[in-house]
């Protein structure tokens, strides 16, 4: 294994992770809800009335985060590796997969593991595994 020490950002990633955990805690302790982004969006798309304004405001907060960040300092780099077709295919798979799998990195990976849910641990193992495999196939086998 060849670690890319130059781009390794242990402290900011730990601190960012801690903020994510704090935000998820704030939402569950205050609103009694799981901060799972795919679940919140899916619920809003299905016109589920229950808690719709709270869910929409959480999403609005996410949207506003880079605007708040931009008031104080320049945004961190946001660089894409895919073109049109890759983005569309990826988006479709992510949308469909997270709804069938009942969650994504936030709902299963952060909140689910934190409440020691076996379902979330299995889901996280699955999407990590297929994420690693997909990148391996695309980068090292097919050379796309």
């Amino acid at each position, binding site marked *: 294994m060849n670690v890319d020490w130059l781009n390794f950002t242990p402290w900011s990633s730990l601190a960012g992770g801690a903020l994510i955990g704090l935000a*998820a805690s704030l939402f569950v302790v205050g609103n009694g*809800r799981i901060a799972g982004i795919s679940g919140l969006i899916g619920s809003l798309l299905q016109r589920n009335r229950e808690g719709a304004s709270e869910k929409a405001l959480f*999403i609005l907060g996410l949207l506003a985060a880079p605007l708040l960040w931009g008031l104080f300092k320049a945004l961190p780099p946001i660089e894409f590796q895919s073109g049109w077709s890759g983005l569309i295919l990826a988006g479709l798979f992510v949308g469909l997969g997270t709804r069938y799998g009942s969650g994504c990195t936030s709902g299963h990976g952060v909140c689910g593991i934190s409440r020691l849910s076996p379902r979330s641990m299995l889901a996280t193992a699955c999407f990590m595994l297929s994420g690693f495999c997909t990148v391996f196939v695309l980068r*090292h086998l097919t050379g796309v």
Partner: protein
Amino acid sequence: MLKLNAFLAGLLFGVGLLLAGMANPTKVLAFLDVAGAWDPSLALVMVGAIATAIGPLTWARRQRKSVLGNPMQLPARKELDRRLVGGSLLFGVGWGIAGICPGPAVTILLTGHWQAIVFVLAMIAGMGLFTLLETRRNP
């Protein structure tokens, strides 16, 4: 208060994603590329997030109501089924193609990158397809 708290939680979540490097698809893909120049940073995002959330979520599991008076709504399902595994595997394939998962996708939506808009529209279409297939299955 419920609404304000929801907004602040979302805001903090988004700032955390930006600080952590999760909002940069290139960095996410570098984490997923274990056979290349591997950037392990994102494992630390999970460590930091779980370390802070595990206490409050353990507390929440024993409550009926949230501090602001909402019913505590934690997922009750226990079954480890094919939908969970298949859906999560499919999600991982999408994540591995573009390096974007739902939280970061929303966070970078208004930063002026057309790629984020295309991805989110496709993601919404994927979620819509799920709803369509589900209503067909259970009309």
